[in-house]
């Protein structure tokens, strides 16, 4: 019983693996529009395109990564602003990552690359390091000449972790473990044993809605107080837990409180804060830093 099939298997596998690495344009999710200025919670001028890459964590485990990046109208990387800062996004528990695509598209139009990994059972808690494996894969891909994502991100460019609900728990862990530049918790708070004090001095944004039925404001507030400054708590008026996701099911909504304002309004208010925080943290934008210091955002109550 000679293992004669090994060479042919190797060839087949390499062929299949190379097929997983796109070199053409991404799927256009949003076309560019110079009229959009990206201010006040609105989209920016870039288009947004999606590419899915595959990598491996812990030697063998497949990690599928959706990368949404600033693009031109054909889905190619818009290289005018490259390399772009990176957001490593982690989905909430049992919520497929594509239900947060609206956020990734928004960030892409404003000049950020967002990567989100898919997890077994849509539970990132079982594979908390996959986001970092995805980041390493993105950086390798960005250093591959000819690839769609070539030069999209810098080898040691700035990164923040962001996550919704259970994903915020994971994002906090990644921020501590991998030294990201900051962390954004969407309707979330860190788990009790997270050693957040290790990252004292790096910025934290915790944002939630006052109608959130799962991550209630007192819990989110208590969670924020575990972080050291600079920290910011933003409470969006009338927003609930699943306003952060697309396509919330009746079962999910039954566990949540009812929002008291239209979703478009609460999302715009939330994005105004997040955009400002990202610009201040990842681009060191002085105007954004000043706006954060002032802390005056329509429809949002800010505290520290």
């Amino acid at each position, binding site marked *: 019983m000679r*293992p004669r099939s090994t060479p042919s298997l190797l060839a087949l596998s390499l062929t299949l*693996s190379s097929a997983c690495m796109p070199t053409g344009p991404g799927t256009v999710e949003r076309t560019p529009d110079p009229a959009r200025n990206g201010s006040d919670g609105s989209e920016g001028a870039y288009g947004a395109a999606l590419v899915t890459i595959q*990598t*491996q964590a*812990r030697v063998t*485990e497949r990690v599928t990564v959706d990368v949404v990046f600033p693009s031109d109208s054909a889905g190619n990387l818009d290289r005018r602003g490259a390399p772009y800062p990176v957001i490593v996004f982690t989905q909430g528990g049992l919520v497929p990552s594509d239900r947060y695509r609206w956020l990734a598209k928004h960030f892409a139009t404003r000049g950020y690359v967002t990567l989100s990994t898919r997890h077994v059972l849509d539970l990132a808690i079982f*594979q908390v390091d996959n986001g970092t494996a995805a980041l390493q894969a993105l950086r390798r891909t960005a250093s591959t000449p000819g690839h769609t994502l070539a030069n999209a991100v810098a080898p040691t460019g700035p990164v923040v972790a962001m996550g919704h609900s259970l994903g915020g728990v994971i994002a906090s862990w990644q921020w501590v473990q991998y030294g990201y530049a900051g962390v954004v918790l969407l309707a979330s708070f860190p788990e009790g044993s997270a050693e957040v004090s290790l990252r004292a001095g790096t910025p934290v944004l915790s944002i939630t809605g006052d109608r959130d039925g799962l991550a209630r404001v007192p819990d989110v507030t208590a969670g924020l107080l575990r972080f050291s400054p600079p920290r910011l708590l933003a409470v969006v008026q009338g927003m609930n837990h699943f306003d952060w996701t697309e396509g919330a099911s009746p079962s999910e909504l039954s566990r949540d409180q009812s929002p008291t304002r239209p979703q478009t309004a609460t999302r715009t208010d939330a994005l105004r804060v997040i955009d400002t925080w990202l610009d201040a943290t990842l681009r060191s934008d002085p105007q954004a830093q000043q706006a954060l210091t002032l802390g005056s955002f329509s429809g949002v109550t800010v505290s520290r």
Partner: protein
Amino acid sequence: MTRTLSSVLAGLASLALTLRAAPAHADPSALRAPTLGPAIAFVVAAPESSRAVWLRPWLAITQEVRLPFDAFGLGVGLRRTLAGRERGWALDVQLGAGFMVPTLYPGLALTLSPSTSIRVRGDNLWFSMGLAAPAAIRLNDTRDMRLPLQGELWFAFRAGPIWLGAMTAIGAVFAPSQSAALLMQGGGYIAIPMESISSIMTHTR
């Protein structure tokens, strides 16, 4: 009757031979599949399938594939019964070692798979439970490794000269500076004694 049985065995053998390349995790789990003497054991499982060709009662060649072709490996396996006997209960240990080629993040990895199991075997049934630690370390990026610890159950029944059964495993994968990740494995297997294969070949020639 004999002719029918031979046809069935020939069919199963053909299926097994066809699957030989398809059935791999960095884990040649077929090393732990219920067999005793020289035999071929195929484990068709998700996410990893494997084959062990027992050339001697204690020595095997192993192949593994993590589907869908995310990694595949080749190695050798050893086993020894520390206590007990062929029928009834026994305590076994197995050790696999080899190489693995991950394909999505291409490279080469070294694999080492120590395991131990307690089995109870009757004439027609086989049950075993054990612990395995099928580890791998990537040679082209030595920060990347997997150090799993998994508990597993095997159940098998005899169908003529072959053994058919199912296995399941659950555990955690550890890696330096990382949090533990969930590990799950499940599938079926077939073990065909070498003497049966010889017989099949003779009858179908």
